[in-house]
């Protein structure tokens, strides 16, 4: 009974917080609309030229009231990494460490961009030819653009066709001129729309800060637990210790021992580190309003985690493992050369590749679903034009969001478990001794 009451209290508090936040944002958009259209004729107010305004001229997102809710854009904005840290709708600056070939290093706080404290992470100023567009640092390619702090008039996003491909291109506006913006270099070799450009971003972004926070939290917790085991030798676990011990024993007995064989002790620390790191970041990403960082839902992070598995498997692979990959015993040579060996070699790379994609896709999908449901509030509320619509949206969206968040809580554990389970089975297969 007591549990039920406290659960109901949590539900009500969540309802209130989400509802208030939605109303606050709705109200904010509402007043903005009135102040920006103040002095213009009523025809502009809801006319079609308003939307023309929103798409084809330079503006800051915060200054123009959009006529339609952009669900995809909003979802992508919230799952991508940013150079500002947002708690609720409030933005906090983070350090920027940028490198441009020929220009050298630039180290400054992202507050130099003078973004709105309550807003979308758009810098109203350019600093040393860098701008903050949609939370991410971009660079102005044109060398004629002045260095130092320069006031901008807004940003412009267009879809352009480059080499037969439709691409989103961003421009910054200064003194009536449009300057093309280039995003930071990414290591995906152009596969996901990125590639090597002229500048590199080594900043402490939202994801990096979240990762550091979780690493510190985990180190603190584990040092404390390790100390507790020394002090309370042969005694029943207490506090944090009794929370971690079942998980620890689970990983040891259900994952390490059955999959790794006799050498399980050697790889147990790796499995535990991966498990708690992934689990911690999965759970941290699901806390609403606290950054909402999508660390395990970013390909770079999952790629490095999968790379660790790949390196460990490749280094520890024994003679038996390599012979099964390169020259499978007991199979006619012609089949080996034509089918088996190429497939096995491909499999070596596909295994960590799917490991990377599985974590990324599951976590990102969960975030997008939650964001889409929250977006219902703005769709129904017509971006603050109808308060009753926003309330209806909240009544529909909040239970759905809570349901998905409950499932995501499960997914956070399952994905961390699956990641180490597969890592253990790959390592186990690579270190297995011949048995025939």
């Amino acid at each position, binding site marked *: 009974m007591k549990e039920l009451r406290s659960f109901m209290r949590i539900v009500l508090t969540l309802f209130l917080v989400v509802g208030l936040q939605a109303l606050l944002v709705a109200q904010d958009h509402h007043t903005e609309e009135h102040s920006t259209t103040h002095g213009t004729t009523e025809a502009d107010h809801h006319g079609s030229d308003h939307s023309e305004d929103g798409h084809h001229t330079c503006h800051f997102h915060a200054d123009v009231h959009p006529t339609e809710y952009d669900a995809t854009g909003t979802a992508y904005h919230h799952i991508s990494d940013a150079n500002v840290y947002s708690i609720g709708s409030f933005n906090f600056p983070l350090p920027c460490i940028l490198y441009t070939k020929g220009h050298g290093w630039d180290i400054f706080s992202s507050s130099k961009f003078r973004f709105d404290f309550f807003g979308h992470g758009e810098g109203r100023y350019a600093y040393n030819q860098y701008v903050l567009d949609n939370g991410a640092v971009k660079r102005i390619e044109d060398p004629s653009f002045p260095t130092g702090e320069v006031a901008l008039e807004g940003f412009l996003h267009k879809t352009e066709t480059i080499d037969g491909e439709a691409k989103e291109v961003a421009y910054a506006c200064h003194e009536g001129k449009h300057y093309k913006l280039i995003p930071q270099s990414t290591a995906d070799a152009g596969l*996901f729309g990125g590639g090597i450009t002229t500048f590199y971003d080594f900043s402490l972004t939202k994801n990096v800060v979240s990762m550091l926070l979780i690493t510190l939290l985990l180190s603190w917790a584990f040092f404390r637990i390790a100390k507790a085991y020394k002090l309370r030798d042969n005694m029943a676990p207490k506090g944090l210790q009794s929370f971690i011990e079942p998980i620890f024993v689970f990983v040891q007995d259900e994952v390490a021992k*059955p999959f790794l064989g006799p050498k399980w002790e050697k790889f147990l620390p790796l499995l535990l580190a991966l498990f708690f790191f992934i689990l911690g970041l999965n759970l941290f990403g699901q806390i609403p309003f606290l950054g909402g960082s999508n660390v395990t839902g970013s390909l770079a992070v999952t790629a490095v985690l999968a790379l660790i598995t790949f390196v460990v498997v490749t280094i520890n692979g024994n003679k038996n493992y390599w012979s099964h990959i390169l020259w499978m015993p007991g199979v006619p040579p012609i089949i080996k050369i034509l089918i088996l060996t190429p497939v096995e070699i491909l499999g070596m790379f596909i295994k960590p590749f799917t490991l990377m*994609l*599985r974590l990324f896709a599951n976590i990102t999908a969960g975030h997008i679903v939650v964001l889409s449901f929250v977006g219902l509030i703005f769709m129904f509320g017509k971006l603050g034009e109808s308060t009753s619509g926003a309330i209806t949206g909240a009544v529909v969206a909040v239970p759905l969001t809570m349901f998905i968040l409950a499932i995501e809580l499960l997914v956070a554990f399952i994905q961390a478990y*699956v990641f180490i389970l597969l890592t253990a089975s790959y390592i186990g297969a690579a270190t297995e001794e011949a048995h025939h």
Partner: protein
Amino acid sequence: MTGSIAAIGMGLAAIGAGIGVGAIGGRAMDAIARQPEALGDIRANMILTAALVEGAALIAIIMAFLVK
């Protein structure tokens, strides 16, 4: 009509993975009902197999993103 044929491929991959994971889950339930004492082993293997099937769908989905 707008959209890309890749989206259809993505849907087909999801159907395939759905059938696969469904079969795995169903058989695992059968197995647990027959031998409840083997729950731990069955569950671990069920998740492992489901993860492997899911891998094929994930590759298909990424391919759908790349081949626009």
